[in-house]
């Protein structure tokens, strides 16, 4: 806490105690509290540093005129101060604690009705409960009763905070390592699990704890069962609390808990309240999760509850319960089988494929499930849940899963066929259900997602041709909506990606796919064109596959015929009126050409044409997406081409890209331009003395909003026959220095930051280079650069104080030595400024305190004006 803040604090306290309504904004108190907690966490005692707080607290608590928001703040602050034992004692001496945490006091004041007082009370107490003394205070004040009442408070925030605190109290009474009835606890375990402080009187405190635990457990038991449907909400709250306790409790507390509430839980499970399915499953699973250590088998009560949940409830609840259990990943064979069966049942019924042959326990639910499926809403919802978990089922151990994964894939395919009306239902009884899924976009999307996920299941590759056929049908279907098409493409990519051997794909299928892709790039909807173009790009990015003759082939080549098919389509897409499509086309082109770049192939005439078009887009496109994509294209090219300097087309275009990129209006384009500049620098200097690669010098500091490149760039450095000066000379000619310097003075912080870091690296490389070369830095004309009199160059002139010196000479251009320039710019200072966020000053505690003071005085002034009854009407 700095001096100035300490000196401001007493006045701030006065302002706050006087009136809370003059705060600059609603969050001021929260910010102040955050600052206080940060100060406390750093080990500083608040009362020692600013004793005025004590006075503030006493006056607020005892004053009848205090605002409820200020009281709530004071209560929280008390908790913060009392969390340390000396603070606690100090507060107790002033008897502030008794008053502050006595709900009766606030009731009498008529303030307890205000939820913000109740929440302050809970938070204050909860923060304070760090040591035994505080706990004893809690017990003696009999605060457990109001706390239990608050658990079912009308305000959700209060109720939730009360639940959390109840869990905290229980954990405090019953630390993980101790048994409930163990009196011979050692010092460590009898002390608070949080502070590790010793308890002065272990037996007494154990007694206190036991009483509190019993009270809480009895409360849970009493309130769990709803006596009427209107109390369901209360049961839900209790179950949430129970789940939270169970997930943190040790074995003995868990035993105790389950013994107390087990019966009520069983009654609740049997009662078939649909709304309680999820919270009940949370409780059961929390119980399961906490099984560990020496206890291997879950409590028989839990096991029994789970069996009931998975067997005797209504179909929608069964599905939810099964999904929850499967999701929890517990290794309980019987229940896993049961859950998997239940989740497969809706699909089994609709597709009439026998997925669950012999599973009689699940088949028992067939009739009731069928009835539920006839209702459209529940049908769609159950199938979607089922589809979400189906991929998980295929990953279960072979002896555990209800049917082979390939059958599951078959069922999903059948379902997809039904959805799009491609095939008739096979059983007459399902006609109503079939109607519910026909044309349902939601089911289609879920099924396609499931199909994508199923691609990585074992033993499913045999289904490749069927999957391929269906997905092509989907892509061809006139009524498929854009999202369905996008998901079909994604599924297709997944399946192609995992199948290293595509020889089963017939020529007819390949032809169908090319035909449908050709059609979809001409679609009316830009979303569809976009996904198609993206698909082409992703396909080109997939690794090679093996062919029927045992050879290895590029997948895109094998499936679509490669670049001669893809490139013309993508080049057409460069002219698309929608900028997203243009951007996707540019990225896809980069993917498609990457292989030929990697092999260092000489650019073809077609590629030269593409480059011309891309440069045109960079200079003329009105949308940022497309221009950013162009930068990414050149970054990919540059980083994958083995020997950049040997490609005149690449180097020539890089120069134009740098020139246009740094003059762009979009900050992301500029950052990408700097990325490209960085690659240029890395390529030129890597291996030079004093030069560090970007990631090594500033690891993991990307700007939060910046788009980061998907792949790490690999660099192809040339054998260092060149000298630094000649390299730098080349870079200056490429326009690198202008990019860096214009970036440095850019008004967008991420751009300035990146440019500054690059310049520092350049400076390091220049200044730390060995002095064996001739003193070229000063004499070599290649190390000079020219400064114009406008824009960033003007800024540099200002920084360097060059206006006077150049006044007599040519006012438009000045030549300056690069080394001198980077030395004079004071880059480190600039980096420091740029690194701080733009609101760092505004967010400082000092600023906060000043704001409170200013607002307070403005308010006081307003008050006095009002008193004088000088009311100025504004029109």
């Amino acid at each position, binding site marked *: 806490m700095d001096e100035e803040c300490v000196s401001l604090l007493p006045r701030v306290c006065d302002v706050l105690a006087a009136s809370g309504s003059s705060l600059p904004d609603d969050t001021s108190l929260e910010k102040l509290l955050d600052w206080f907690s940060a100060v406390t966490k750093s080990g500083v005692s608040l009362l020692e540093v600013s004793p005025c707080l004590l006075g503030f607290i006493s006056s607020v608590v005892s004053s009848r005129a205090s605002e409820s928001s200020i009281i709530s703040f004071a209560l929280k602050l008390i908790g913060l101060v009392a969390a340390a034992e000396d603070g606690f004692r100090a507060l107790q001496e002033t008897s502030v604690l008794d008053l502050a945490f006595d709900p009766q006091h606030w009731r009498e004041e008529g303030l307890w009705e205000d939820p913000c007082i109740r929440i302050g009370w809970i938070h204050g107490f909860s923060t304070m409960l760090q040591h035994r003394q505080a706990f004893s205070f809690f017990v003696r004040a009999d605060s457990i009763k109001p706390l239990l009442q608050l658990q079912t408070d009308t305000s959700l925030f209060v109720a939730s905070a009360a639940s959390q605190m109840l869990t905290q109290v229980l954990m405090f009474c019953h630390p993980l390592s101790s048994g409930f009835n163990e009196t011979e606890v050692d010092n460590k375990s009898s002390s608070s699990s949080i502070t590790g402080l010793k308890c002065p009187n272990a037996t007494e405190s154990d007694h206190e704890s036991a009483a509190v635990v019993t009270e809480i457990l009895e409360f849970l038991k009493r309130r769990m069962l709803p006596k009427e449907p209107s109390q369901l909400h209360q049961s839900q709250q209790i179950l949430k609390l129970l789940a939270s306790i169970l997930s943190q409790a040790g074995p003995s507390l868990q035993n105790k808990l389950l013994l107390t509430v087990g019966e009520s839980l069983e009654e609740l499970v049997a009662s078939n309240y649909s709304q309680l399915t999820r919270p009940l499953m949370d409780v059961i699973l929390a119980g399961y999760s906490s099984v560990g250590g020496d206890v291997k088998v879950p409590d028989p009560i839990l096991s029994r509850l789970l069996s009931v949940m998975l067997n005797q409830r209504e179909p929608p609840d069964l599905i939810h319960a099964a999904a929850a259990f499967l999701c929890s990943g517990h290794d309980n064979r019987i229940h896993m089988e049961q859950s998997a069966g239940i989740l497969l049942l809706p699909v089994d019924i609709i597709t009439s494929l026998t997925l669950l042959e012999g599973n009689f326990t699940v088949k028992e639910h067939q009739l009731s499930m069928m009835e539920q499926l006839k209702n459209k809403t529940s049908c769609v919802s159950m199938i979607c849940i089922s589809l979400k978990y189906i991929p998980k089922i295929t990953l279960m151990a072979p002896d555990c899963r209800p049917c082979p994964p390939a059958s599951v894939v078959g069922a999903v395919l059948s379902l997809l066929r039904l959805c799009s009306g491609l095939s008739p239902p096979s059983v007459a009884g399902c006609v109503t259900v079939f109607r519910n899924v026909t044309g349902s976009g939601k089911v289609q999307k879920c099924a396609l997602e499931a199909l994508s996920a199923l691609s990585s299941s074992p033993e499913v590759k045999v289904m490749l041709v069927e999957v391929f056929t269906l997905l092509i049908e989907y892509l061809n279907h006139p*009524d*498929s909506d854009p999202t369905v098409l996008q998901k079909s493409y994604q599924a297709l990519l997944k399946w192609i990606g995992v199948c290293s051997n595509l020889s089963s794909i017939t020529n007819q299928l390949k032809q169908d796919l090319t035909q449908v892709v050709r*059609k979809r790039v*001409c679609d009316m909807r830009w979303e569809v064109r976009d996904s198609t173009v993206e698909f082409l790009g992703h396909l080109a990015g997939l690794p090679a596959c093996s062919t029927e003759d045992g050879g290895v082939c590029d997948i895109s080549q094998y499936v679509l015929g490669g670049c001669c098919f893809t490139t013309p389509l993508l080049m057409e897409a460069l002219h698309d009126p929608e900028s997203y499509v243009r951007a996707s086309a540019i990225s896809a082109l980069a993917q498609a050409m990457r292989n030929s770049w990697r092999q260092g192939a000489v650019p073809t005439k077609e590629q030269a044409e593409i480059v011309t078009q891309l440069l045109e887009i960079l200079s003329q496109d009105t949308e940022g997406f497309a221009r950013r994509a162009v930068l990414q294209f050149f970054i990919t090219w540059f980083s994958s081409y083995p020997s950049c300097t040997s490609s005149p087309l690449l180097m020539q275009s890089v120069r134009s890209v740098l020139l246009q990129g740094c003059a762009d209006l979009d900050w992301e384009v500029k950052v990408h331009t700097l990325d490209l500049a960085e690659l240029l620098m890395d390529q030129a200097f890597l291996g030079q003395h004093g030069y560090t690669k970007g990631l090594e010098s500033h690891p993991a500091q990307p700007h939060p909003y910046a788009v980061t490149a998907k792949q790490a760039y690999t660099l192809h450095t040339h054998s260092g026959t060149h000298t630094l000066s000649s390299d730098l000379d080349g870079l200056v000619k490429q326009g690198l220095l202008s990019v860096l310097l214009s970036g440095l003075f850019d008004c967008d912080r991420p751009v300035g930051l990146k440019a500054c870091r690059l310049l520092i690296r350049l400076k390091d490389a220049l200044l730390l280079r060995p002095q064996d070369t001739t003193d070229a830095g000063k004499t070599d004309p290649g190390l000079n650069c020219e400064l114009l009199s406008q824009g960033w160059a003007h800024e540099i002139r200002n920084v360097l104080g060059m206006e006077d010196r150049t006044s007599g000479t040519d006012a438009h251009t000045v030549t300056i030595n690069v080394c001198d320039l980077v030395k004079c710019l004071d880059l480190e200072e600039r980096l420091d400024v740029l690194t701080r966020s733009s609101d760092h000053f505004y967010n400082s505690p000092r600023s906060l305190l000043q704001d409170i003071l200013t607002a307070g005085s403005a308010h006081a002034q307003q008050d006095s004006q009002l008193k004088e009854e000088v009311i100025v009407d504004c029109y």
Partner: protein
Amino acid sequence: MKLYCLSGHPTLPCNVLKFKSTTIMLDCGLDTTSVLNFLPLPLVHSPRLSKLPGWIPKDGTMNLEKELKECAGRVFVDSQPEFCLPERELLDLSTIDVILISNYHCMMALPYITEHTGFTGTVYATEPTLQIGRLLMEELVNFMERVPKAQSATSWKNKDMQRMLPGPLKDAVDVWTWKRCYGMQEVNSALSRVQLVGYSQKVELFGAVQVSPLSSGYSLGSSNWIIQSHHEKVAYVSGSSLLTTHPQPMDQSSLKNSDVLILTGLTQMPTANPDGMLGEFCSNLAMTIRAGGNVLVPCYSSGVIYDLLECLYQFIDSANLGTTPFYFISPVANSSLEFSQIFAEWLCHNKQSKVYLPEPPFPHAELIQTNKLKHYPSIHGDFSSDFRQPCVVFTGHPSLRFGDVVHFMELWGKSGLNTIIFTEPDFSYLDALAPYQPLAMKCVYCPIDTRLNFHQVAKLLKEVQPLHVVCPEQYTQPPMTQSHRSDLMLELQPPPMPYRRCSVLNLPFRRRYERVYILPELAQSLVPTEVKPGVSIATVSAVLHSKDNKHTLQSVPKPPPVPPTKKRKRVMEEPPVAPKPLLSGAVPLEAFLATLQKHGITEVKVEETADGHILHLQAEDTLIQLEEDGTHIVCDNNEPLRTTLRDLVLRFLQKL
């Protein structure tokens, strides 16, 4: 009320409704699918078609070589194409009072009905329906007349011969009633009987019923009709659409509370969503053009083509088709494009508001201005000099049997680069293509039918709640090819009444009320008596005057002053006898018994019956039956007693 069904085609209906002494024909659609059995009529000599071999039956018993030609395994009639007319024998067409037309596609049989049949009635249609219907008829006549075919094949129609023919000729029905196309003179004469109406305009028919067209949202000027009397309402729903295309949206609320709703003209493609089809149309078109091929779109010269052009207008740029020429070739192309722009009041709100900007409502005006869309009356003339490939050609007729489309089929059919895209749902594309086989050209079928689908119609009927629905039998079962799709049929409670060609349906409701007017002076003379709170009645003596199905009660004319003449005529001149008073109320048993006692009748035996009581006056041997709706006194040979008893009963009743 009866309905005579003269056409079995669900989207080209022709029904006659007899309702309250009026005979109303609802639409007269012409089923042109019969032309698919004929060879195409080429505009320029086609060596391929002329060299087709004559059909020789296997047993060689018939000689129909000149009439029937064989192409790719199918047999076609080599003659001027003929149409299947609505049934003309079911009722005397001269008795039809009016014809209501719902849209321009449903009036193509008009000349067959109004000409040479003795028809003297009026045809009601909206202005766009009349004008565009005229264009379509002109086009049809033009297509037929510019390539006259001397030969008229009739031998194959002989029943014994037809039975031996291969399908589908063998299965064609009523081939003897098929007729060649009408001429311009008949068209003009038929259309001269049309009287124009506007939406919601009420037209009185002989005072008996009122008919009124409602916007149906399907095409320019398309309408559904309400036919109502004072107490009955019949709704006739023909081609209607709920999609937002160019016409005014459908008026659904006025269809509410109908006694009978006659439902025709649902979509012919229930599984093809028009939006999806439009998307397919555009992408296939762009794909072909990009590959350097030409696109042929066989279509009608009005209707969906406006939407296609509008869609292309937006699509051209996104698909880089800016330089591709679009040709619209039809004898009425120019009029069709221009007419569409002048019927602003019949367009959807968006397009209407453009007129005030002022801008042409359809963007095809801009396409024409920028030379992207060019239209020609025929392939002859200017077109041949302007023609540039690759291009997109819109032309008729969608059956591919006549019109300029035949020429393009011959021209482009051999190249796999070209594509034909079917957008009209009226013809099976496979049948349409049959005489052009083998065909290398790609074929895409994206029928765009914006009419109501089953889902929409179910929702509509739920909302408008008609008491009874009458529809073509095709709508009461799933399509033949998709028998599992029970969602593609009408499922209603009570079930709809199906009809087929030649059905005569007795519509299931009886007229119970008739409105009668009372003249003011007569009304003034009435003396109402309140029988219970809020209900008063009065007796009326008047003369009922009925004229033009309008009924009026007038005061009885006072007899002229009687000249003192011959005595024997006096009987005739006596004023009519005043009607007996009407009685109301009930006889209370106890009070009646007391009264009887007062009058010395003491021996009364009361018997309770289902409807009231029987009083047996034992001494007098008389019965009095007191029932809810009548009182009888059975008293033989004692008239004074009967009269006394009657008067006693009357004491308890109110007289009116």
